[in-house]
């Protein structure tokens, strides 16, 4: 039976915290990329060209139904095969951005479809331009619908970041692995990783729920 050692815990704490910073950075940057990629993928399915729409749709389906871990390895190892130098960090951001971009594109699509058809018809009847309709009527209503999904994937990306350790991004899991290998103590590093994840993701999820409620209230939607 292995005993928990507090002195060791405090000894490795600085390195763990530094790694936590990297984890948060990876999640944040990955999320921003995914938010933009998602927008592109959503618009890519609403072009005038049917062929483009179908191709983008299929690409989204492919990325969504295959594992992030395998995609990570694919991007990290295949790029050099074609003479492209891609660092672990860049591979990671590219993969996360693409992978979660497909999920976010679905969130956006659902939100747009969640705006009642009658709203479009009312705008047509008032002779608003398409751009004005989007800006003043559709997007303000679509946003609160999209918000829960967008929030979920922020937390979702955060919780997937430990995978980045496998290609050598120096985030929390990678640091815990390294500490384990150096000291032969795994109990404290791995448990601390779990604990750090918990104390970040729980309040974040709670905060997001509050934000949702606030946005919903601001939209005059009181029955939520």
């Amino acid at each position, binding site marked *: 039976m292995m005993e928990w050692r507090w002195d060791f815990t405090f000894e490795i704490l600085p390195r763990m915290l530094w790694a936590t910073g990297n984890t948060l950075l990876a999640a944040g940057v990955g999320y921003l990329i995914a938010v933009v990629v998602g927008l592109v993928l959503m618009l890519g399915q609403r072009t005038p060209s049917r062929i483009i729409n179908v191709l983008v749709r299929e690409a989204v389906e*492919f990325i969504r139904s295959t594992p992030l*871990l395998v995609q990570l390895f*694919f991007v990290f190892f295949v790029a050099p095969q074609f003479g492209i130098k891609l660092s672990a960090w860049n591979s990671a951001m590219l993969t996360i951005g693409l992978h979660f971009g497909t999920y976010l594109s679905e969130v956006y699509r659902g939100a747009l479809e969640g705006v009642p058809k009658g709203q479009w018809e009312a705008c047509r009847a008032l002779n608003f331009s398409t751009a004005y309709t989007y800006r003043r009527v559709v997007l303000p209503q679509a946003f609160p619908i999209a918000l829960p999904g967008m929030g979920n994937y922020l937390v979702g990306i955060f919780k997937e970041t430990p995978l980045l350790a496998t290609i050598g991004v120096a985030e929390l899991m990678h640091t815990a692995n390294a500490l384990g290998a150096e000291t032969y103590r795994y109990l404290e590093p791995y448990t601390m990783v*779990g604990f750090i994840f918990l104390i970040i993701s729980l309040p974040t999820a709670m905060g997001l729920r509050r934000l949702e409620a606030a946005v919903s209230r601001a939209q005059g939607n009181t029955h939520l």
Partner: protein
Amino acid sequence: MSYWEFLAEYLPKLASGALMTIGVMICATLLAAAISILFGLMRLSRNWAFQGPATVYIEFFRGTSLLVQLYWIYYVLPLMGLTLTPFVSGVLALGLNFGAYGAEIVRGGIQSVPRGQWEAARALNLSVSQQMRSIIIPQTFPIVLPPVANLTVELLKATALVALISAVDLMFVAKQINATTWLSAQTFGTALLIYYVMARIALIPFLRWLEVLAARKVGKA
């Protein structure tokens, strides 16, 4: 080496890895289903002795990362005297993690059955367990199946993580082949295709079929 030669040489290996992936997935799905139902029902209980532990369980497993849970089970539990094989560790971590998400689906499904159904069942003097079994649970199937289908696809994808604790699944075999051949595009590309086929051509149609079946059962189709 052409892609066909690559396939001829390595596809059997990848296929055997895929079999392991399917095995992990089936076992983990069964475990997750059992946990989902148990903790989903506990979460709905008005008794704190049931609701409290269920809430803690669900928040804990959803709040931490699957890989962290997997490593903890595989690397830390042995330090406490419990050594599990990679397969068992993988099934356990996946089942516990996805069970927490599934429990929330079960809870939501049961809560979405209109109050009038409970009241009608009570007015007919059915006992609480009879109300659950014959009135409420059957009505939750069409509601929970679509999110359950999504979750099952996520579980299939997540099985790739067991490669990291050296269970010899599709991902593990792909890593091995990559390490000896450095034909990364072929290796990981083929692995991705196999995952895609498993999800889109086998799993998703099967789950859609279940949805249609459930909808027909409630007389909606």
